[in-house]
């Protein structure tokens, strides 16, 4: 355990790197998934293709992707952009599905009502469809964030420094506390980010929480 006490600075620095790389990937993945998800949802013909293709991305072995990307992107093999692009691809694979499912979950009556009272198409998407897809999209975002944090550790195998370093270094030098510190740090980061997402959801989607609290039965009694 003294290894951990002696290396708190290293752990903190690697954690910061780790969080930065993961968050960039999740944010870009989220931003890319909204238009992709919308197109898949809106145009039935494209839907199958987009959902299947993005879903298949998830089955690409991460190590293979990390080895291929530098050639595809024309970057140095040790550039962290390779890792961020790979993580973004995996995030998109999860999030496109979540956006499509989220938009599907919006009540058709509500959509019709929004059009009937005078929402134009763009305004309806940003003001009605997307917020109402929020709970399902948020659930997808939580999964994507946790999986990205865990997956990012493979970066160390292609020379990108983050918490994965504690695994490889600890393994090579037979320092078990170092490996354990890495595992605990990854789990803690994932838990904290998940908690932040839940809190953000409560703040941004207050109606979703209240709906689940007032059940249909309670409403019937009120009537």
């Amino acid at each position, binding site marked *: 355990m003294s290894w951990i006490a002696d290396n708190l600075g290293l752990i903190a620095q690697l954690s910061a790197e780790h969080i930065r790389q993961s968050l960039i990937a999740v944010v870009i993945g989220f931003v890319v998934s909204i238009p992709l998800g919308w197109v898949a949802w809106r145009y039935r013909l494209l839907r199958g293709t987009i959902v299947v293709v993005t879903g298949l991305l998830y089955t690409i072995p991460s190590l293979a992707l990390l080895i291929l990307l530098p050639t595809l992107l024309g970057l140095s093999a040790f550039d962290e952009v390779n890792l961020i692009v790979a993580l973004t691809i995996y995030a998109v694979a999860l999030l496109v599905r979540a956006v499509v499912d989220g938009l599907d979950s919006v*009540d058709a*009556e*509500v959509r*019709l*009502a*929004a*059009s*009937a*009272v*005078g*929402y*134009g198409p763009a*305004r309806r998407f940003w003001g*009605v469809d997307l*917020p*109402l897809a*929020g709970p399902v999209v948020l659930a997808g975002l939580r999964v994507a964030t946790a999986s990205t944090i865990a997956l990012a550790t493979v970066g160390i195998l292609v020379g990108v420094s983050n918490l994965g370093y504690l695994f490889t270094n600890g393994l090579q030098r037979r320092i078990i506390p170092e490996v354990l510190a890495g595992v605990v740090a990854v789990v803690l980061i994932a838990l904290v980010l998940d908690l932040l997402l839940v809190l953000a959801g409560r703040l941004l*989607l*207050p*109606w*979703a929480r*209240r*709906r689940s609290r*007032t059940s249909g039965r309670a*409403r019937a009694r*009120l*009537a």
Partner: protein
Amino acid sequence: MIEFRGVSKTFPDGTEAVHEFSLVLPARKTTVFVGSSGCGKTTLLRMINRMVDPTSGTVEIDGEDVARRKPVQLRRSIGYVMQNSGLMPHFTVVDNIATVPVLQGRTRRDARSRALELMATVGLDTALANRYPSQLSGGQQQRVGVARGLAADPNILLMDEPFGAVDPIVRAELQQELLRLQDEFDKTIVFVTHDIDEAFLLGDQVAILQVGGRIAQVGSPSALIEAPANEFVASFIGAEAGKRALHAKRTANGTVLVDAQGRTQGVLVEGADAS
């Protein structure tokens, strides 16, 4: 005034929802389209605010063809109230009512203060202003729906079976409330229902529709009851066998009116004003 001129609608799948429909809906009166499901009444309603565009024929508002208006602007200028309220689940009550004024570019603050006034107008406690629709009863939700329809002070209010999903007691309350509001605001209301009693209660002009939006008969409730045009109308309004088929029965205390099932429905008051 709204005027349908030879309006037909064939949907892409080939079903003809409305065939050659023509009717004038007078300004500041309530016109009710009543008929069984599939008679095209909702399609007709949606043609007024261009939720549906006719395949042929025109719909005019005060002499202007709605096809020349931009759909989004047109819809903001017409109140719309639908079954199951159609409220935005993620907006509070006050923001739901303020929806249309905000879309029209009014400030949120302005629109909210107007919304609070409207809550009182439609009989809602302003303490509910910051609730979400899911926290309200069905009747309260419909009141919010009506308030939203009135918020931009439109001349025309379209109501698509607005009270269809609430229980009979609440429905009766809401109907009385609508009559009171109409007394106060004098809107041109187009109301769609499958309930003939509701049609007769609320309508100044009632159009009984058959499949394809064919008008079986149109007129005031009294005219329809007094002179049903055909068998279909007579049976639809229940003039022959239902509760509207009353006959006089003499009793020791005067004449009472009895329905087809033999239940006494009322007392005949001689010499009363027949209007």
